Each structure stands twice: as C-alpha cells, then as structure tokens.
C-alpha cells in the first residue's frame, strides 16, 4: 500500500523544514531504512529515512523548498499502484491529517492508538538527540486525566497538554471542564480593592508561562530588533468600516481591517513575510497571520491562514472563532503554529503606542495602538482627526530598515485608503 510521507516534526519548535536534497528521484526504488532526503530544521540538518520499501512515486516538495510540519513531501508505493487519490488529497492547505483522525471517537482512539500518525512513517534516528522526544504525535495523557476525561465525556483532542512533552494532565482536563473563558471573565471582574490589600505571593510558573519566557528571551536575545512606527489617519478606515457594518451581517472590527491590510502589504513586501533559518532565509509563499490573544495565564497566537485569499467577512469570522476557542484553550496545535507574521493589538486598552517582541521564527510583528481623537494638521489647517499608531518590530537579520519602512509605508497607504482592499 502506498504511504504518504509528511514533513515530520523534528523538534518542539519546528514548524517547517526545508528539503536540502533529494537522494532519490521520482521513479527510483527505495528500500526501508534507506536515506531518501536531507531535511533542514530550525535546529539541524537531518537525514530522512524511508520507513517503507517501494518506488518513490511522487515528490511534492522540490529541493530548496520548505514544507510545514505535517504537510506531504512524497509518496512511496508500488510501481503500478494507483495513487491518484493520494495525489488529489494533498491540495488542501490543512496539514497533519492525523489531528483530524484523533478527533474522531475518543473511546476508539483510546483503546486502539496503534494507527501510526503520518509523521511517524519516517524513521529518523537522530530525532531524539535533537528534540528529546520520540518524534511522533501520539497523544500523551496521564492515566488519571484520561479517566476523568472519559467520565466527563470530553473529547481528548480538544485538550492542550501542559505537562512535560505536552502530556495532558488532570489540571488540563479540569480547566477544560471549568471553561477557561468564563473563569477568565470572572477573574477580570475581581475588584481592584483586593489587589491593593493582597500580600506578596510566590506564584508557581505554568508550562505556558515557561514557554513564553523561554521563547521571548530567545527572541529578544537572538533576533536583533528594530522598530518602525507610523501614525495612521483612520478617517477613511472608520468610514469604510461603518459602511461595511451597515450592510453586512457580520461586524467587522478594526483589527480585521488591519489583518487584511497587513496581508496586502506583506504580499507587496515578501521580504517581511520571512524567517531566519541560520544558513538561509525562508521567504514564505503563503501569508499566515497570527493574532495575539490574551489568556489569564499568558497569551497565545492563533493563526489565520492564507489571509490574502480571504475576504474581510471570513477573516472576521475566523478571528472571532479562533479567539474564543483560544480563551477556552480548545485550539488544536495546527491552529496556533505555522504563522508567518503576527499582529498584537492593545487598542482596546487605550494605549497610544507600544513595541512587541517578535514571535520566532517569524521576522516581524505589528503592534497596534488605539484610535484616538486628536488635533491634526491637514492641508495647512488644524482640525480634529482620528489617528492610530502602529509599530513594526523587525528581525534585522531578515529585514533591513528600508524594507521595514517600505512595508510600513504601503500599510499606511492601504489603511488610509481602505478602498484599495477591494482591488
């Protein structure tokens, strides 16, 4: 039977791998255990071994190109085997089919986890050294957590594990049970008086907090940040939005407009939609924008995929859905990884301006402030205008000053003339 080889996840932080070299050509015979390709991850160059013997029927990702983790890179099968169904099934942008499999039938999955996830179909002897985990995406869950989840009829694939190597533990099931969102809202309503009287506390650090700490320290200490700020005249964007919202059934937010505008600007400035990989820079073909969502214990950036191919209504609906499920901690891993650029919006907190830390391996993040009413000089006269400050943080290894400034100039243009979004 033909086997699809997907880009394996070779380290905790790996979202994408680059095929450095194919050691076999399409049509060549491949023996089990034979090295068929060299893959560059964010940490090392590694050899990809065939798990099955057969003919290398199809290569999806040519040399020098990257593929997101879980995306198909090749098919191995019999010489005359019909693989048309597999070829047809790979057009989808959704990677990691095994996640979809996991979400069906909790009971069944628990009793028969033997179905190997697709990313385990390649055997990589050095994966352990690189990532310290055994590669695959087999669900890790403590016996107790599993028991509670079964009793309470919780779909295990909806849970995020906060234990070591993503193990789902009791705490995660309990959090899912108490519905993170309501707990979050309740905590927001806690009177401030309590804070004033509160004693100094030693707070133990959650796995999420640890990850945030590690990733952001890594970002700020390895990626040389520089910042470009623009002051946007929001007059037309405000008119544009109210016009849309008067006719459309969905309610478009300013953030939705910013997301769409950023996708436009990224398409015009592909060098900003990129990642530093050490020896090379990946310039991403697709525009996947992460949106920072605040949680009680930290933050997470769910990703809207292929933003430039989507209309505002769809972006708005997806953003709402992702944000609400993020607060309930119900996002699947593929929904918060694989972004190529991030937007952090603190506008609702009435902040003028701030600078964000880049979310690696992305090269840029846009910090969005509030829209404020202020006196502005327009055509030589002082009037009252609506302004919004946005600040781009750039990884200087990937983006130079002029490139960042050009992106911001284009973005400013789009936001000040939002009708161009319709082009």
């Amino acid at each position, binding site marked *: 039977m033909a086997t699809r080889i997907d880009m394996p996840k070779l380290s905790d932080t790996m979202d994408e791998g680059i095929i450095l070299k194919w050691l076999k050509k399409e049509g060549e015979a491949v023996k089990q255990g034979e090295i068929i390709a060299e893959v560059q991850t964010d940490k090392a160059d590694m050899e990809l071994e065939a798990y099955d013997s057969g003919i290398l029927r199809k290569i999806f990702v040519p040399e020098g190109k990257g593929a997101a983790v879980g995306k198909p890179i090749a098919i191995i099968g019999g010489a005359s085997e019909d693989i048309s169904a597999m070829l047809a099934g790979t057009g989808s942008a959704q990677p990691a089919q095994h996640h979809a499999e996991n979400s069906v039938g909790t009971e069944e999955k628990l009793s028969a986890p033997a179905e190997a996830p697709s990313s385990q179909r390649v055997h990589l002897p050095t994966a352990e050294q690189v990532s310290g985990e055994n590669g695959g995406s087999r669900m890790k869950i*403590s*016996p107790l957590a599993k*028991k509670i989840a079964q009793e309470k009829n919780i779909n295990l694939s909806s849970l995020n594990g906060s234990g070591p190597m993503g193990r789902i*533990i009791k*705490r995660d099931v309990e959090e899912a049970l108490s519905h993170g969102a309501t707990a979050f809202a309740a905590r927001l309503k806690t009177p401030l008086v309590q804070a004033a009287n509160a004693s100094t506390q030693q707070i*133990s650090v959650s796995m999420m907090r640890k990850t945030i700490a590690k990733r952001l320290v890594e970002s700020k200490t390895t990626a040389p940040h520089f910042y470009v700020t623009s002051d946007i005249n929001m007059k037309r964007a405000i008119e544009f939005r109210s016009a849309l919202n008067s006719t459309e059934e969905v309610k478009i937010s300013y953030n939705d407009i910013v997301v769409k505008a950023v996708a436009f600007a990224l398409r015009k400035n592909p060098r900003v939609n990129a990642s530093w990989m050490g020896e090379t820079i990946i310039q991403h073909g697709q525009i996947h924008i992460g949106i920072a969502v605040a949680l009680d214990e930290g933050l997470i950036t769910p990703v809207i995929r292929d933003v430039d191919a989507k209309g505002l209504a769809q972006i708005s609906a997806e953003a709402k859905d992702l944000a609400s499920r993020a607060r309930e901690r119900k996002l699947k891993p593929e929904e918060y990884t694989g972004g190529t650029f991030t937007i952090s919006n603190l506008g609702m907190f009435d902040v003028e301006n701030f600078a964000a830390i880049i979310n690696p391996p992305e090269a840029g993040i846009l910090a969005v402030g509030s829209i404020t009413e202020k006196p502005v000089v327009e055509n030589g006269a002082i009037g009252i205008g609506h302004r919004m400050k946005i600040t781009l943080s750039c990884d200087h290894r990937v983006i130079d000053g002029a490139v960042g400034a050009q992106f911001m100039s284009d973005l400013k243009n789009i936001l000040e003339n939002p009708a161009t979004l319709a082009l």
Partner: protein
Amino acid sequence: MAVVAFREALNQAMSEEMERDPNVFLMGEEVAQYQGAYKVSQGMLQKFGEKRVIDTPITEAGFAGLGIGAAMIGLRPIVEMMTWNFAILAFDQLFNNAAKVRYMSGGQFKVPIVVRGPSGAAHALGSQHSQSLESVLAHVPGLIVVAPSTPADGKGLLKSAIRDDNPVMFMESEMMYGQKGEVPDGEYIIPLGVGDVKREGKDVTIIAWSKMLHVALAAAEQLAKEGVEAEIIDPRTIRPLDETMILNSVKKTNRCVIVEEAWPFASVGKEISSRIYSKAFDFLDAPIEHVNGADVPMPYAHNLEKLMLPSIPRVVDAVKKVLYR
C-alpha cells in the same frame, strides 16, 4: 504520656516482654557487660541476669544460628546485631534457616526470633558500614521486616515482633537512638503490617520510613509554605506492606514520591511503586518519583556522604516534579 528516647523505648519493649514471658531472652555483641554498643540494653543485665542477657563472641553467623535453634525449641530470642552491616555474615542463617524452617518442616517448627540492630548510614562509617539492606531482607519469603521511625512506633512494633511466631528482622537507626518522642504509658502494642499516616495532606503522597520519614516531614513543612499539602505515609512494616493505606492515599492525591535511604536498584520503593502502578494506575496524574541514596558505595568523606543521602531539597524537587510545578 512520657517523652523517652528511641533507645529507651526499645529497652522498655524488651524489658516488658521479658518480664511478661520467661522464654524471651537477649543476646548479642556487647549487650550485657558493656550495656549495649548503643546502650539500648542499658540496665538489662542487672535486671534479668546473665542467663537472659548474654554477651556473644564476634560470630554473627554463629549466634544467629544459636538463636534460630533456641527459637525452634520454644524460646523467644532477641538477637541484637551491632549493625545490620555485620548481620550480612548471618544472612545464610536468616535466609536459609530462619525464613524456611517453618515451611520446610510442614509447620512442625516455628522460629519466633527477633533479629534487631541499626541499619543505614550514621556519620562517616564508610562503605561497608552504611548500608540500608531492607530490600535484601524483604526479598526473602518467610521474613518479616520492620523499620520504625519514632520511639512510640519502635516500642509498639518491637513488642509485636517479640510476640510474633515468625522471624522478624527489626531495623533501627543509629542516628535515631537519641531521638525523643512521646510514648503512650502502659501496655502499647502496634500490630505488624499496619502503616501510619504521619501527616495528612491532599496534594501529594510521600512514602518514607525509618530515618527518611524525618526528611520527608521536614520537606513537607517547607512545601506547606509554598501551598503544597503533602500526605506522609510511614508503612512502618516493610513486609508485609500496608498496601491498602498506600493505595488509598495515592488515590486521594494522584501523585506519589517515595523516599528511601537505600540504593535505587530493586529497592523497596520500587516494589511499592510497582504495586501502585498495577493497582492504582487510573489514579495517577504523574509518574511516581523516587528519591534514593545514590547508586554508589557510601563515600567515607562526610561531605560526600551527605550528598549521597536523600535530602530535603531533593524531596521538595521530586514533589514539584510530580505536581508539574
């Protein structure tokens, strides 16, 4: 309730049982004239005379065999080993005779002997004299193994051990002989095979016995300051093990740390964790953590000795690990 030292509590247990039953007698190296290497038998020679408090030559295998023979014909000997390290010489007698005679004679003979003495490390006694061998003894069917942690437990359990018709290996600690604690007045007996909850808690179960119980208690105090309520289970008897108490506690807390002075390989703690994994699997939220003595012969240097033994920070770390903190 009187506050007495551990050695005195043991002395009370032996003296009371010798007063109660003329078949009970004590023998061992230095137990009589010298009043005990660690003064556990202080005053007993004067009280019971040299027929019932007997100094032996330095021949562990010899006097262990003597004791087993005496037990087979109806006496109830207490054999003091100056330390369990020296008792290694007598393991042939203990394993092949004490543990098996009742079985091999089809119950015609029983061996009501207590072999007791200090176990584990003291201060810089070197590799050969600092061993915790309870798993070696508990490995052998036919032997009962007891390791008390407080004067009261020491007294109550030793009295039960003397009255038991089976060979009881009673493991004390040189470091604890001077430790004082309340011992109930009058006849005080603790049945063998019954554990004790030394501290109640809901967040994690710590299992420890003998000297390590006190390390666990100190760690629990420290953890309490950080908001972690540890439940401390002292099995007291290693074999037979109070499995029910252990399982109930783990079912309540969902997490377990086992602290023991012995080496990690095939230790008593591993036996306990194996039972928890088989019988309370669905109640575990984290793998069980073990805190053991390091897997090396005991270094002579005192600073290294301290590093080898389980310590409060190591227990605290293990607890945090099972709590995912």
